[in-house]
């Protein structure tokens, strides 16, 4: 199952990415052209330090929570009570009780649109759970092999259905 990011964590991630981009851009600019002449150097340094501290402050809870959740699920064998998600995603909620989550499959599912990724992952886990262990590795590889094409197909389908709806 794809870990469902709370909105707050998503905002933190976006903040992290923006912060990292600004900081890297500014850092590169300082390295290439030197600090701006109208600013004292300690101000430039303070800006970079504060920007990086901000990034760490935002990044830590977001990524840490995310990693902990995946690890926690694996430790518990992925057996989670409660209801699932909603809509097509909710369908995937049935499989919350699937066997140990495969991080590779989780990562690959992120290539697809969210709902499609969740469904793919849920179905893969459901099938893998029932396969004899000897055949499981081959099946996982087959899922991984077909995933990129499937991701393209799903995004294309999503795009077509959206543009079709607008027209």
């Amino acid at each position, binding site marked *: 199952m794809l870990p469902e990011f709370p909105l707050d964590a998503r905002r933190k991630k976006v903040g992290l990415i923006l912060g990292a981009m600004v900081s890297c851009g500014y850092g590169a600019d300082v390295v290439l052209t030197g600090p701006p002449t109208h600013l004292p150097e300690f101000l430039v340094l303070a800006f970079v330090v504060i920007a990086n501290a901000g990034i760490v402050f935002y990044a830590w809870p977001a990524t840490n929570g995310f990693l902990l959740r995946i690890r926690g699920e694996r430790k518990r064998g992925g057996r989670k009570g409660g209801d699932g998600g909603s809509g097509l995603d909710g369908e995937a909620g049935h499989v919350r009780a699937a066997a140990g989550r495969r991080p590779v499959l989780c990562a690959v599912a992120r290539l697809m649109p969210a709902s499609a990724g969740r469904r793919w992952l849920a179905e893969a886990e459901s099938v893998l759970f029932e396969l004899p262990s000897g055949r499981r590795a081959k*099946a996982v590889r087959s899922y991984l092999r077909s995933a990129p094409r499937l991701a393209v197909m799903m995004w294309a389908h999503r795009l077509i259905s959206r543009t079709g709806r607008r027209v």
Partner: protein
Amino acid sequence: MALRLTVQVLLVLQALLREPGRELYGLEVSEETGLLPGTAYPILLRLEHEGWVTSRWEDVDPRAEKRPARRYYRLTAGGAAEASAAVASARRPRGAALRGLAREAGTA
């Protein structure tokens, strides 16, 4: 998106056509066709997008069953007709080609 009738697609259609009313889940489809589950899934999804197949999650309590819910696939009424036609048309050229070859072999 037009559905390309590859050998794999035809295998999946044949498996679903064996008993058109019956629902098959991913693993069954994979076992009946000999395809790997990762290969069968995109085909089933494409068939579903085309409206030939419908699917649903099994309504079970995974904790009681001690396994995750399965996703069941079934041919729709229209899909069954289209699938039969597709499988039949895929068989025809091969049959005709074989008959042609046999004729050639007979005359040679």
